[in-house]
């Protein structure tokens, strides 16, 4: 009797999902060939005036950090909440990552590797408005350094190198910096997070020091994401 029950339950679920798939298929089919007058007036505006208004070459970064900077603030808060959740779920006792003890080769290569990671992370953050990348991606690459230390040299060494309190404080400083740069827009008479509109010197596009406040927003997000992900990783490792 139990087998029939299990099979009927499984069939019910598969039926549910297949009906959803067919429903989606019809909707996508309709939407795809309905799309006669593809209305893209907003993105055409971003493409045509994007470089003049925000000064950033990379339109995706100008959308993320200037036109829709409020989304990025919300998203940075999501990341900060995730880091705070993981840091308080961890018990006091440390538990090392069980696994094979690494040979000398691994520890040597990580020492060679770390400066390259640092440079790559810095490049992604500082050149966020010129090349693809930006605060989030650069921050993650920088967070790889404490993660590599944790894996090869156990958590204690990585905690010794980057103190957990320092990481927590640098994450909050990054977040507060982002909001203060946003408030700069209010101080100069325009609205919150106003970069292109406020009369901030945009510099000529393509230079490193251009695009007004976007590089500073990138740096703040980079610090925040780097510290946040280091906290997330170390607390996941320490959870006994």
């Amino acid at each position, binding site marked *: 009797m139990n087998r029939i029950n299990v099979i009927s339950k499984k069939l019910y679920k598969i039926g549910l999902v297949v009906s959803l798939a067919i429903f989606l298929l019809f909707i996508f089919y309709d939407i795809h060939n309905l*799309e006669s007058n593809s*209305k893209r*007036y907003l993105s055409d505006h971003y493409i045509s005036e994007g470089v003049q208004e925000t000064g950033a070459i990379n339109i995706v970064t100008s959308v993320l950090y200037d036109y*829709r900077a409020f989304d990025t603030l*919300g998203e940075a808060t999501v990341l900060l909440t995730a880091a705070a959740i993981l840091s308080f779920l961890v018990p006091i006792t440390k538990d090392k990552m069980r696994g094979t003890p690494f040979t000398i080769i691994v520890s040597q290569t990580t020492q060679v590797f770390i400066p390259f990671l640092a440079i790559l992370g810095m490049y992604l953050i500082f050149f966020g408005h010129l090349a693809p990348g930006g605060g989030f991606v650069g921050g993650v690459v920088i967070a790889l350094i404490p993660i590599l230390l944790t894996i090869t040299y156990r958590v204690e060494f990585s905690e010794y190198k980057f103190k957990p309190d320092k990481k927590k404080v640098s994450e*909050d400083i990054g977040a507060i910096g982002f*909001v203060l740069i946003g408030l700069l827009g209010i101080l100069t008479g325009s609205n919150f997070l106003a*970069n292109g509109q406020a009369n901030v010197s945009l510099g000529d596009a393509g230079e490193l020091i251009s695009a007004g406040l976007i590089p500073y927003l990138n740096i703040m997000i980079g610090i925040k994401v780097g510290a946040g992900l280091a906290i997330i990783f170390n607390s996941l490792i320490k959870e006994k």
Partner: protein
Amino acid sequence: MEAAVWVIILPLLTAFFIGISKVYVKKIFVPLVISSAIIYLYLLILVINNSYPPNVYSVGAWRLIGINLMVDPFSGLFLLIIALLFLPVIIFSVKYIKSYKHEYFIFTYIMTAGIAGMVLTADLFNLYVFLEVSSLSSCALVALKKTNKGLEGAYKYLVMSTLGSFFILLATILTYYLTGTLNIAEISLEFNEIPFKIKSALMAFFVFGYVLKIGLIPLHFWLPDTYEDSPIPYNVLSSGLVMKSAVYALIKVLYIIFGIDFLDKSGLLQIGVFWGVITFIVAHLLAFQQSNLSRLLAYSSIAQIAYIMIGLFVGTEGGLIGGNFHILNHAIMKGTLFLVTAIFYYSLSAVNIEDIKGLAYKFPILSFTFVVASLAIVGLPPFNGFISKWLIVEAALESGFVYAAFFILVGTFLSLTYYLKVIITLYTKNDKEIVVEEPGLSLSLPTIFLGSLCIVFGVVPSLPLRLINKIPTFLLDNGEYIRVLLGG
């Protein structure tokens, strides 16, 4: 209007400063929390006062190509609820929360910022981002006490709300693909040309996503678990704000983007009312069998949210006024009930209904507030619950949902039974001596303040109704809302 952005930034800044104060300047923690709550209250009142001629604040000064915040009476009502609930809960939890104090306040401030963001924004993707912020931080608050049930409730809540968010995200992406913009006003203008089939499919995704978060009957099983072992002051904010902000987002998306006539044509109004009726009947029956006080209040929250859905889905002006007034009343009444339960838990860690036997003689004032709030939530005449329920019943009768009005009255008696069960155990004589830890003033004052609001809004309903009567003008025909957002 400048203060509209501060309503969202101030809680975020306070949360970040609390993060720093955990490490460096430890002793400024309590003054920082209290002062920012008071400034926040002043800011909210400032925004609510000039919410009538709705004004638009464009973030980054990009008029229509950026993200706009819009303060209209409907969001003004929610800011009023935040104003009424936030300060009492903060003062209450400064003394009540002993373990993980810093994390509790960081998550509460981030959740309030998320809810304020959801309520104010006039941009579809921004609504999704702030929805994610508020649900992740409220899920963290559920898991704060790290008990087995708490962690399990947090896991279920996380799974369900992320599943709901992904459906909302799918609908947002398809809306962007069809209309090319993310501004709510422009979307509703573009939506007139879209054929009926696609529009109703998008509406189905939105409704499914938001109902998963609100917790109507078939999708409600995760909700009572989140109330069981979470810090009780959080339950006040959760049932008062988090569930209601999902209702707010659903109503704003449906009424503004799809428009009232499309809702009527597609029959969603009838489905909504029917769904609400089933929900509150089943919720009342389930609430009857509960022994844990928090679970009983959780099921009663689901039932009250069902009343609000009926009020809002009736689709007439009277229904909207009744529904919104019930949102305000339920937030206050449920807040009082949860705060009193928190005091019982604080003084003698009472969890089940049997544990609070004979406490009325130990806490006369608090038990009286509990009785007032439960009679108000049941909907008896002198209190505020009665007025809003009566408005909903009237609106349901007006627009022909006779069965809904009848079942609401039946539901009133159902809820009367299980609240009476609690009150009776409260007042039965208890012979054995109970060692009680005396709750200080900072615990009982907020409770009494919220309890007195139950009576004040009951006797003088014109106080909040002045604001609530203005809501339908900007919700029923979305042309008014669009004119303001686009014209500006």
